[in-house]
């Protein structure tokens, strides 16, 4: 083993991974870095559970009559896929893993403001996850991740209650995480770290936290009402009782549209870090990117009605929500243009994280632009609830948010694990994912325009060609996601030692050894320069 010679070197130093051992030291830890890893392990499991459901669905859709599944089973699979991916993978992905790991280090603190709450949030999250797993293994739930009433409250006899309560519980994990980040960013910044010297990742996480804190409780109380309505046959959403099912949609989307920005904003933050590091350039238009994050967070709360253009919402409200939805396009466009401009006259390298970042910009651009079709009233009427919508939000959430997440994981993996992964494999995986993704989801735009509704296990013959193309792409995409899992786990033991700053990156987190010591910094750092000051003298810690 070539790496064996390096083992002693890394083991002589005490860091957060080897400071103590045993299950107890992990399950009772209040170290934000260890909690980040607890989250990483949990959401990876949930991701592959949700992914397995997607694979079965795509397999089934090869045949118009359904290749292997009964409609009931298919319905359970897409519900499980949605619930797992949205509430148990995407929403905690970057905030709870990379955010937990990086926020204290980026602000130069020893930990988050409330370490015990942070650990509590993981337990709450896992409790929610257990409810979900129970719902799945006790027979499944077929309400869709949207829990629309009165279907969910009165007509389904699957495990809707367990699933809804699971989401309700996991919501509090999200609230605690967001609360912790806001307080940490406000109160615990190192000396010299002013708001406009902060890395843009922190701005993005801050904006995300606003949504988590102010949006999540609304969906929580809504799901409580669904549960009460199911248990006691009273409530506010059942038309048979004088209630209104459209009110449920208002309350649900008040959170669940901003939730999309919980997924994409942190990815945008990650991309700002990656583009600068691998172009060796300061970010183009720092304050525009920073403020556009906050603008997106605020506007995201004003647009939920575009999920309801055909629901029976009033024409007037449709016009209001359409106009406000278009407004979100502008801060998003500002970000994309600024990232692209950052590469201008840079020193661009093709390391794996950069490939993910470039993939993110391209796919997010497509996802964002196709959103215009759905903000526009007349076209949304035709495209609503078709595969066009599926394609659009997968371009945002998978093409965008997951690419950003993977880019971030690859970028900070040397910091997290202290090891390097095989670069060739990583670039290959990035390419496979990019290609597989487009093959899977681009045909779905066309399917949607042709009129294929979503959540259809059985469909008319004429949609088959596109469905087969999409399923073929999905098989490539699935493989693409497995490759990083293998080499990242491999690298934990066999990867070469990374050193404190393998990318020559700026930022406080790179000024401490990899893996960092439990208290992050030997002494509280002082910040004297702006973020991304790549023009200044190179880091002395640079490992060539």
């Amino acid at each position, binding site marked *: 083993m070539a790496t064996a010679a390096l083992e002693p070197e890394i083991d002589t130093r005490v860091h957060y991974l080897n400071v103590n051992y045993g299950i107890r030291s992990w399950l009772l830890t209040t170290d934000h870095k260890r909690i980040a890893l607890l989250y990483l392990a949990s959401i990876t499991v949930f991701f592959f559970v949700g992914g397995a459901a997607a694979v079965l669905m795509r397999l089934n859709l090869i045949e118009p009559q359904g290749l292997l599944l009964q409609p009931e089973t298919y319905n359970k699979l897409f519900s499980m896929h949605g619930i797992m991916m949205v509430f148990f993978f995407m929403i905690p992905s970057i905030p709870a893993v990379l955010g937990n790991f990086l926020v204290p280090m980026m602000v130069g603190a020893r930990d988050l403001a409330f370490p015990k709450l942070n650990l509590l949030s993981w337990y709450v999250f896992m409790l929610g996850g257990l409810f979900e797993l129970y719902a799945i293994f006790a027979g499944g739930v077929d309400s869709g991740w949207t829990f629309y009433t009165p279907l969910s409250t009165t007509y389904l006899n699957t495990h809707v209650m367990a699933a809804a309560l699971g989401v309700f519980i996991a919501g509090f994990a999200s609230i605690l995480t967001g609360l912790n980040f806001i307080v940490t960013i406000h109160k615990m910044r190192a000396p010299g770290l002013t708001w406009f010297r902060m890395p843009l990742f922190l701005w993005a996480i801050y904006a995300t936290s606003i949504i988590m804190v102010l949006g999540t409780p609304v969906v929580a109380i809504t799901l409580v009402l669904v549960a009460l309505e199911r248990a006691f046959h009273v409530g506010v959403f059942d038309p048979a009782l004088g209630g209104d099912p459209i009110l449920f949609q208002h309350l649900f989307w008040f959170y669940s549209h901003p939730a999309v920005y919980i997924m994409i904003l942190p990815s945008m933050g990650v991309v700002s870090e990656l583009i600068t590091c691998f172009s060796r350039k300061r970010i183009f*238009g720092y304050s525009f990117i920073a403020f556009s994050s906050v603008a997106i967070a605020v506007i995201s709360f004003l647009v939920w009605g575009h999920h309801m253009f055909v629901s029976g919402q009033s024409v007037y409200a449709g016009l209001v929500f359409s106009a406000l939805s278009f407004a979100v396009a502008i801060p998003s466009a500002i970000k994309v243009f600024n990232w692209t*401009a950052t590469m201008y006259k840079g020193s661009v390298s093709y390391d794996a994280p950069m490939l993910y970042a470039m993939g993110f910009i391209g796919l997010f651009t497509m996802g964002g632009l196709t959103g215009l079709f759905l*903000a526009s009233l007349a076209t949304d009427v035709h495209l609503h609830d078709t595969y066009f919508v599926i394609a659009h939000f997968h371009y945002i959430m998978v093409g965008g948010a997951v690419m950003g997440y993977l880019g971030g994981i690859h970028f900070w993996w040397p910091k997290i694990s202290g090891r390097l992964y095989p670069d060739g494999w990583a670039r290959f995986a990035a390419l496979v994912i990019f290609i597989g993704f487009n093959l899977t989801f681009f045909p779905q735009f066309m399917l949607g325009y042709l009129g294929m509704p979503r959540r259809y296990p059985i469909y*008319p013959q004429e949609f088959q060609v596109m469905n087969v193309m999409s399923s073929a792409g999905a098989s490539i995409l699935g493989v693409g996601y497995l490759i990083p899992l293998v080499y990242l786990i491999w690298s934990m033991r066999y990867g070469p030692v990374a050193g404190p700053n393998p990318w020559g990156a700026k930022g406080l987190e790179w000024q401490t050894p990899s893996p960092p010591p439990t208290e992050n910094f030997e002494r509280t750092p002082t910040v004297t320069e702006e973020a991304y000051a790549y023009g200044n003298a190179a880091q002395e810690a640079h490992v060539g």
Partner: protein
Amino acid sequence: MFQGLPIRPEQASTIAKGVDHLYYFLTAVDLFFTAVIFLTIFYFAIRYRRRSKDEKATQIEGSLPLEIAWSVVPLVLTVVMFLWGSSLYIRNSRPPEASTEIFVIGKQWMWQLQHPEGRREINELHVPLGRPVKLTMTSEDVIHDFFIPSFRVKKDVVPGRYSTIWFEATKTGSFHFFCAQYCGTNHSLMRGEVIVMKPDDYERWLSGGVQAQTMAGAGAALYERFACITCHGTGKGPPFVNLYASTVKLSTGEAVVVDDAYLRESILYPSAKIVAGYPPIMPTFKGQITEEELLELISYIKSLKTEERQTAK
């Protein structure tokens, strides 16, 4: 061109073309910006690739004119998109006065369609070519959604209320319609065909089949069966003749227009809106009357208005 690989759904209604034009415009804008971003990224990535390990980049802080440009251009484009999409939507949400009305009831997992003349269909809808058709829709259980891709129309079918769409078919033939709102196990089987016929053929079709009662006729029978006449025929309750589309004053002082939704509410929840001058004595018919019967009663009440007008002439 590509048989078996269509790239556009058929344009078979008067509004399809307008929606498609907006769609093409949006596609053009999207393709343009996607190309700009992709090509720029590729160009920068190649042109400014790292050539040596210690290469330094030129540091640029930003550019206010550029920031303004790429804020204002999207702003202008989105304003155009908003106005364009909204004008079409408003036009498409207003059925012409002279529309043929057809009633749609969604239930798990089938569509029941009723023509006022009495013909009923399941998962099949016959409509005349070149005449505006208005669908008044409701659901017996959960939320469904009536979606005809070739006509570019879609609307949720919500229990407890009426929603409407309208279209005017421009091509004869058979077109799919789908339930687009997930409604339970057999959601994907809740679909059917719209059959567009030349007006003559349509009339012939309407009068064919098993000779059924007209909807208003069926409503008249219900009027007898539920003994509505004991009050509404004797002055104890508001009379029905000429009631539909008139404005009535409520006991609260409010004025409401009598439409489908109002009639529905008054049959199911009589005390919700009491017409001024009448005692609140009507019992609720909730649970005793089906969605179909409701529509028949409403058709009957509507028909009373038409008769009056004809006799007035």
